[in-house]
């Protein structure tokens, strides 16, 4: 099926929809038409209203004004069940399957075909599932338990479930955020297959290159208002960014050239059984060193061990010439290490705590000293310090006493960065620093990292975002299956050379 014919009404559409939550206008006059046989991108920064659009389509929210239309007819979804009945299915970033049930049982959960005496007809369940997988062009075993499936495979199962319910509209809310390059390709193949079979697909991603690869049209939102709908071939990446942020963005990767100083972090033959083996490298002051590799290559595990949240079995870690004991985050912190962890919501922040208290959590000792009242902490000192950092990182917030949970993802990440930068570290380890963050904040984080490096901070950056790795790093270390397979200089680093080393094909850089 080629370009959507304008004669047929769109399968699913929002027409001039507005939606407010209290005084907050989440959507204002948004129009979005999904046609059969197209993949339609929804672009916008965090807080632009993308989730509200998804939830309106999914029947969770009802518009205050405007209409939802199915096949051109106005409908009122009175809940997710109505949307589902109309053929709308939402695939979330992290699907929730029943881990102990098989893939097939998950797909037919709640509407299993019955054999005699009300027993579940397993054979039909498995056969139907196999048929679905063939239709999607994937090789998954219907009898395999859902536990242990990669996130990519779990998404495929969710898609199969949607198709088995005769979904005509598939809404994919940041499906690729946690996927590796190969997995994204597989997901895209499935997506293309569905498109050719006449599905209407809404695709949301922060990675612009994905929008250009898979989508035909893109609708942009900014601060809840409709900016426009364009064919992707009429746009460049810069055009799209401009539509999203409403202004020209400074370079997305503003890496400054630096002359590396003395060695700040030295990792020698570090090994943790079952996670990584024999890892040796150095990071100098002023340098940004990227640690690249596929998900599961052991990159985060190395970071966790260096910082002491996990123990290592052999090897050594030195910060500014001082050896660290294994398994002590407290010792690592006083030696000048800081870790911005991968999982912001679980490990980076205490979601129920206020912004200022989260920022102060790493400096309970120095807050005490500065207060000069023995063991007591001064809330004033804490608040002033938090306000300084909020200003420096251009944090968007209402009150410092608000819980961090109310902030957008990008602003939450800024709080995590503030909390660690306030410890005045020598070495900063950032694990996926821009995952799930909108493009404007992403550029800000990159500029910040670049500035910090220019001020003599040593930065170790773990990232699955290849353009980020290539754009930001002075050197790229690549891991494959728990081992360091390549070290590539900035001049030689390309997406191809990094991917080659990450997938275990012969590295084009010099071997480490």
């Amino acid at each position, binding site marked *: 099926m080629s370009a959507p014919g304008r004669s047929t009404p769109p399968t699913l559409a929002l027409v001039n929809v507005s939606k*407010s*939550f*209290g*005084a*907050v*206008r989440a959507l204002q006059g948004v129009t979005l038409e999904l046609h059969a046989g197209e993949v339609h991108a929804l672009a916008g920064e965090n807080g632009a209203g993308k989730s509200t659009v998804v939830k309106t389509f999914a029947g969770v*929210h*009802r518009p*205050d*004004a405007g209409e939802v239309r199915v096949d051109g007819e106005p409908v009122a979804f009175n809940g997710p069940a109505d949307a589902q009945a109309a053929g709308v299915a939402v695939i979330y970033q992290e699907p929730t399957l029943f881990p102990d049930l098989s893939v097939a049982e998950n797909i037919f959960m709640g509407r299993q075909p019955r054999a005699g005496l009300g027993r579940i007809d397993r054979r039909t369940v498995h056969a139907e599932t196999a048929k679905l997988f063939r239709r999607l062009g994937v090789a998954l075993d219907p009898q395999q338990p859902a536990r242990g499936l990669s996130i990519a495979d779990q998404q495929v199962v969710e898609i199969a479930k949607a198709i088995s319910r005769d979904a005509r509209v598939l809404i994919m809310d940041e499906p690729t955020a946690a996927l590796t390059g190969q997995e994204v390709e597989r997901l895209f193949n499935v997506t293309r297959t569905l498109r050719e079979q006449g599905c209407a697909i809404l695709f949301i991603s922060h990675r612009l290159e994905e929008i250009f690869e898979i989508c035909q049209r893109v609708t942009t939102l900014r601060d809840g208002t409709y900016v426009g709908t364009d064919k992707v071939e009429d746009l460049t990446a810069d055009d799209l960014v401009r539509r999203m942020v409403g202004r020209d963005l400074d370079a997305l990767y503003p890496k400054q050239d630096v002359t590396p100083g003395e060695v700040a972090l030295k990792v020698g033959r570090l090994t943790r059984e079952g996670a990584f083996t024999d890892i040796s490298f150095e990071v100098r002051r002023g340098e940004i060193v990227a640690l690249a590799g596929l998900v599961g290559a052991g990159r985060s595990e190395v970071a966790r061990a260096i910082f002491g*949240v996990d123990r290592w079995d052999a090897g050594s870690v030195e910060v500014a010439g001082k050896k660290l004991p294994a398994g002590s*985050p*407290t010792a*690592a*912190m006083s030696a000048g290490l800081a*870790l911005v*962890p991968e*999982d912001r919501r*679980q*490990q*980076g*922040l*205490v*979601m*129920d*705590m206020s912004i200022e*208290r989260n920022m*102060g*959590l*790493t400096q*309970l*000792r120095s*807050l*005490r000293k500065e207060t000069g009242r023995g*063991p*007591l*902490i001064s809330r004033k000192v804490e*608040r002033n310090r938090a*306000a300084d950092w*909020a*200003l420096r990182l*251009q*944090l*968007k*917030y*209402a*009150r*410092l*006493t608000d819980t961090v949970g109310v902030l957008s993802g990008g602003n939450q990440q800024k709080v995590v960065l503030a*909390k660690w930068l306030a410890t005045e570290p020598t070495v900063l380890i950032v694990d996926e620093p821009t995952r799930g963050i909108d493009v404007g904040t992403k550029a800000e984080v990159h500029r910040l990292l670049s500035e910090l490096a220019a001020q003599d901070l040593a930065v170790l950056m773990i990232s699955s975002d290849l353009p980020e790795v290539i754009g930001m790093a002075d050197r790229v270390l690549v891991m494959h299956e728990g081992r360091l397979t390549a070290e590539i200089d900035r001049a030689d680093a390309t997406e191809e050379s990094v991917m080659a080393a990450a997938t275990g094909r012969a590295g084009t850089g010099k071997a480490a």
Partner: protein
Amino acid sequence: MTTDTKSAPRGLSLGRLLRWETAVTALLVIVFAGGAGFSPDFANTDNLSFALGDLSEIALIALPMTLLVVCGQVDLSVASVLGLCSALTGKLWDGGMAIETIIPIVLVVGVVCGLVNGLLVTRLGLPSLAVTIGTMTLYRGLAYVVLGTEAISEFPTRYTNLATESIPGMPIPYPIALFAVLAIITAVVLHATGVGRSLFAIGSQEDAAYFAGIRVKRLKLVLFVVSGLVAGFAGIVFTLRYGSARADNGLGLELTVIAAVLLGGIDFDGGKGTLGGVIAAVLLIGLLRNLLMLNDVSTEVQSIVTGLLLIISVLTPRLIAVVREAQGRRRGARPVPSAAAP
């Protein structure tokens, strides 16, 4: 929304008035006023002083229990530690030892009990609920090993007086005076120091606390040890106050303590609450028990009241949350004709 550094509104606001602690304090005042009108023997100095003294062990143990629950833990073995330490006090006194020697020995036993709980929780990573259900039975069993079913009495009046008499010039029994001092210290630790901040962080999100360099295990271990120490001390107070050492002393007291902590607004999931609320709740439970006693209500009914309070204190915040959510949904579903400009 631009960067805005103005501080939160402070002082009396509607939200502050509706806080759980305020509600408990208001209830305390109502029960007091009602009791004074209803029962002629209630609002006099002697009775109130007695009612306070009767709370000694519960009040003391509630302090470390508050810290434990804030950091997401619980110690159910406190009443058994109390019983063990009471039995031991009696046994050693019966054996001819001086009270001055007995007290440090018994306190060390309390510390060891707490240490065992703490090590099982922190080293083996077991949930504190399960560990302390186990040690609750274990320590109570040990108490019977020490003293069997006999009761030791006739402790020196010099010491029993200390446990029952009031400080000069005020109708406040000595153990409650000590509680007041400890309560102030606990409140400062919980609400104004780095340790307190760390406890709230651990209770809300242990991973994030650990990643922020907080010594999670060490803090938990220390809390269990303090809990054991205070429970042991409460065992001595109990023994001297009643002038009787028995292995079954303080049976079931841990539930009253936990009822007080939860009624005081500490979230059983950790991370939320204030010590002020707990103190108000302890006093409330004390007044209720006293009123029931004055009106010759049986102990069975008293325990029913404690149980109901426990359930109400856990249930009410959930109900409030459900009601708020429902209101929010109704408001959200209604079309807003023209949203006010922010």
